[in-house]
């Protein structure tokens, strides 16, 4: 058998672990070991895994701090819901509709990502962070002003800037339905998202991101992160690669958003606010920057943690906050860090020795 490189091997392990987790959870779900609230967490977890993996591409691999990732999720969610709901009579197959919704969601998020990327990627550091935050808030408010309905004539869209219009102004024909009701967001959505779809989306996101990282383009993106000037001087087109990572990340977030949107019958745009962006950022940073595997684990653990702490009711967010601070302090503690590095050095020496023996 061809000897795999270290990177490829860890990629395969990631895939295998995700597939294994899917099988275990599916078995648990089918024999009824999961209660209603637990199985209700499965689709959101898949969505947030994709969000974390895609944000890791921007923050960890590209090295630009984005505080508006939920904005892309929001774009994907609402375009996805519109697609799925308006095609309800045309396409009877749930799977085809779900797939189309995710593709449309990813497409629109990518377009928005590209448009935002043009100004944003000219900035660096904290300035870039604040501008992505600003865009996230703008997207949220714009969607809050949106009224969308569908009838036999097609889509009706009103942009409700003055705040005085209601769903009646859409002038829908008999049998038409309102899809997005301004500040209330998407209402009466038919929930077609499923755990299997979530798993497939996670796998697709992993394949895209891991292959991108290991490719020539991925190395160029990491070179830009490590030293922009040096990368530019060896002929790497900085803007192009930054845009590539940013748009890919946005598209994946859009697909995750579409799945997320189709998992709830009611969803308001305010769900995708600054706090959601921060939530995903926390997953990425605690999982380890640039570490895809870490993002997945951190997402699962941190998403379940507040739910698992439901017994503590009011104290759960407090505990969450303390866990967050303590983990950050512990992972960055100089004493623990040297200890960990020593441990790692010991193991890698062992690895090398084994490699030399064989």
């Amino acid at each position: 058998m061809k000897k795999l490189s270290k990177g490829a091997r860890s990629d395969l392990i990631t895939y295998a672990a995700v597939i294994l987790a899917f099988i275990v959870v599916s078995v648990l779900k089918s024999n009824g070991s999961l209660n209603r609230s637990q199985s209700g967490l499965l689709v959101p977890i898949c969505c947030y895994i994709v969000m974390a993996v895609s944000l890791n591409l921007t923050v960890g691999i590209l090295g630009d701090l984005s505080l508006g990732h939920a904005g892309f999720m929001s774009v994907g969610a609402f375009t996805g819901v519109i697609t799925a709901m308006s095609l309800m009579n045309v396409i009877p197959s749930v799977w085809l509709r779900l797939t189309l919704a995710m593709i449309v969601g990813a497409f629109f998020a990518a377009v928005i990502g590209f448009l935002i990327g043009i100004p944003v990627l000219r900035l660096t550091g904290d300035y870039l962070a604040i501008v992505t935050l600003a865009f996230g808030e703008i997207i949220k408010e714009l969607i809050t002003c949106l009224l969308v309905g569908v009838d036999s004539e097609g889509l009706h869209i009103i942009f409700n800037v003055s705040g005085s219009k209601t769903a009646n102004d859409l002038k829908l024909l008999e049998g038409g339905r309102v899809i997005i009701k301004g500040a209330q967001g998407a209402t009466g959505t038919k929930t077609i998202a499923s755990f299997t779809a979530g798993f497939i989306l996670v796998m697709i996101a992993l394949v895209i991101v891991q292959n991108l990282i290991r490719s020539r383009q991925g190395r160029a993106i990491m070179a830009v992160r490590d030293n922009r000037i040096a990368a530019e001087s060896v002929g790497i087109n900085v803007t192009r690669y930054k845009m590539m990572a940013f748009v890919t990340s946005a598209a994946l977030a859009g697909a995750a958003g579409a799945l997320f949107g189709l998992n709830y019958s009611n969803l308001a745009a305010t769900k995708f606010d600054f706090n959601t962006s921060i939530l995903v950022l926390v997953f990425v940073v605690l999982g380890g920057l640039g570490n895809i595997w870490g993002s997945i684990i951190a997402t699962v653990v941190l998403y379940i943690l507040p739910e698992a702490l439901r017994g503590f009711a009011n104290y759960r967010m407090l505990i969450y906050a303390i866990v967050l601070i303590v983990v950050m302090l512990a992972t960055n503690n100089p004493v623990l860090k040297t200890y960990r590095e020593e441990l790692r050095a010991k193991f890698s020496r062992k690895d090398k020795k084994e490699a030399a023996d064989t």
Partner: protein
Amino acid sequence: MKFLAYLVSGISLGSIYAIIALGYTMVYGIAKMLNFAHGDVIMIGGYVSFLAAKNLGVPPLVSVLIAMAVCTVLGIVIEALAYRPLRSAPSLAVLITAIGVSYLLQNSALLIWGANPKAYTPVVSGTLQLFDGQLSISYISLLTVACCIVIMVALTLFTGRTKMGKAMRACSEDKGAAQLMGINVNRTISLTFAIGSALAAIAGALLCSFSPALMPTTGSMPGIKAFTAAVFGGIGSIPGAFLGGILLGVIEALARAYISTQLSNSIVFAVLIIVLLVRPAGLLGKYTQEKV
């Protein structure tokens, strides 16, 4: 006349943003970190002054002084426990810790004081009638603007003229070199956090005097806006934070009055984006050329 009224409300709102932004910008300038917990210190300041006025029956100004004292201590404690151990850590780690502190403060407030909004009694009440009653300016607006100007001037003098201020500027320039010159870097950073938190307490009292509903999440949005204001004016620059805050408040008030109530925040953020594209370091920020 209506325009003037909107302008006045914009300037007074902007003054609150400016006071918060001054705290943000000082902390950023010296510790090079985005202190996301700043907005929540504002909220704590609001609660402390509310409770002091209600339970101890002290006059409003004394309640603000108590809030300042509590927030100063809080700021120093937060810095010592959460941020100091991360002095050499990557900036993202510090950012996440700051977010953790922000959650911690919000949820502690939620547990202690509950989610129901408290009706804050304004620090001063009454309005000033001008032009035969066509334009009315509340005293709280005047107080806010006056506070903001006094604080701005005091901070400029403090950082420019005093020894501690010089130490602060030295630390923000180069921590290592400052330490070699015999400056106690840790103490200087503590002092900066103390000043920033005291300002946050003042801002909290003023903010709650304007919109009296006091909740655990009261500080979040003003915190983000003030952060935007600080970046807008050029983060790290004291006059910049002042200018950014005032402009942001005016733009927000005018956008709300003339364009759209729903989109007022979007318009503020859109202006920020445009400004950053033209002047990447903010209005009064120093743009340093990258040297290779």
